[in-house]
């Protein structure tokens, strides 16, 4: 239960995430079906299956952990260009580029990564916290991570807190009115349903924290 530092550890984390997505695909689809077109399970699985295939290639030689993120992001954006596939894919690409020079990722580097992903999604999606999107899991997750580090927690402890906050953020989307994407067309009728993208956001922090706790 350590937070990934090297390129190969980031690979492991993403493969772990791919397995989580596989296990959660049906739930993602069902959540997206309530307020969207129901394809999120299919597209996320498609994206992460492709990522797993790319990253499991024995020929693969990436030295920098940032390159792993760029490769994963590019793959996602190429094979699963739905709203979330695109936002997430380019979020990973930008985060990877931000830490391109690092051979190992410490807490500060991960803090940059999460903030970059959040900023990228917010900018491209023209969205903010409270709009009932993936940001409502990613933003509390990233903030909890930073606060824990500031408090002097270990990176592992901080990651676990990030996951708990992201997970709570997902639950909280039930109270929100959607303001983005297909769900935005439901206006006040969107209240009462949880957001599918936010569920995906919680999965990301789950893989990051390597939490074994039930999702």
């Amino acid at each position, binding site marked *: 239960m350590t937070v990934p530092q090297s390129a190969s550890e980031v690979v492991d984390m993403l493969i772990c995430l791919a397995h989580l997505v596989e296990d959660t695909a049906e739930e993602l689809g069902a959540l997206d079906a309530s307020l969207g077109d129901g394809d999120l399970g299919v597209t996320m699985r498609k994206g992460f299956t492709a990522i797993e295939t790319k990253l499991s290639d024995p020929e693969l030689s990436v030295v920098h952990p940032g390159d792993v993120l760029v490769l994963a992001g590019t793959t996602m954006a*190429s094979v699963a260009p739905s709203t979330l596939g695109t936002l997430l894919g380019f979020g990973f690409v930008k985060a990877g580029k931000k830490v391109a020079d690092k051979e190992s990722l410490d807490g500060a580097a991960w803090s940059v990564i999460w903030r970059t992903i959040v900023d990228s999604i917010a900018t491209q999606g023209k969205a903010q916290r409270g709009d009932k999107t993936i940001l409502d899991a990613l933003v509390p997750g990233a903030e909890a991570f930073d606060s824990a580090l500031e408090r002097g927690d270990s990176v592992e402890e901080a990651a676990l807190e990030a996951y708990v906050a992201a997970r709570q953020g997902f639950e909280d989307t039930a109270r929100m009115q959607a303001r983005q994407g*297909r769900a935005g067309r439901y206006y006040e009728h969107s209240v009462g349903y949880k957001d599918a993208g936010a569920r995906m956001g919680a999965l990301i922090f789950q893989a990051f924290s390597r939490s074994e706790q039930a999702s």
Partner: protein
Amino acid sequence: MKKFMNDPSSFEADMLEGILLAHGDELEALDPDRRALVRRQAPSAGKVGLVTGGGSGHLPLFLGYVGQGMLDGVAVGDVFASPSAMVMLEVTRRVNSGSGVLYLYGNYGGDVLNFDMAAEMATDEGIEVESVVGIDDVASAPKGEESRRRGIAGLFYLYKLAGAKAELGASLAEVKEVAEKAIARTRSMGVALSPCYLPSTGQASFAIGPDEMEVGMGIHGEPGMERLPIEQSHQLVSRLLEPMVQELSLGAGDQVSVLVNGLGATSREELYIVYRDVHRWLANFGIEVLLPYIGEFATSLEMSGMSVSILSLEDELVELLAHPCDTPFWRQCR
């Protein structure tokens, strides 16, 4: 659902293979999956490159209008799904002659995101990129919220007008100006009578009663404005035209082009009956129709239904509309 197809999972691949086998003298695929398609002769020296893209299932949209006098390249997505920004970038690189590239596409979340990303990446590579987004469907958001509207069959006018302007050697700024004029002067509205079926799932895109019509339905089965009992063509036509003509402030002496578009299963006989009623309704208000278009221009697989688009004309637009073009799916000779 009954369809002529092989494995549903190869629906897009088989279709694209067929299109390239049939039109390989005019179109070229840049990738093995045939998702990045361009005119064979692209780039044309000194010409602004025009690129579109969008989900499959709307033929002749989007790829059908790549050819002489219209577009230079297209990024092709799965049925009703956006193509990726990487594919768009690939197309952009190829069609850029150094005179810049203009993205023209419909206002759908996934497409906007991906074209924005592609534009960002292309700009990073030093390619000048601009975008104009189709928002002709008056039924998809109220007046005042035009930027939330969807793009439907009126995209044809966007392609045709910008395409002619670019072909005539205009600069990126000039072509963009014409494209924006096309957007400002085009309105559309559609009616659906029956759903389409997604090849991958076999599911109907929506449910509708045997005597009902959905006024304002989108080309992916997005909900419209009203569910009503089906009515006679002339009644329906006046229902569709009124808001469009009002938004375009059309009156006696004005000239328009009309596009009556079949969504897939509607017979051409019916489209001409609708055109008759459109022509008469407009004539009644002293509005003259030049260069009408009747047929299938933007479909939704085998959905039964149609849309009417109006383009408010002025001198330059008449010339550009009449300008010859020659694409696999639309040809205007001379």
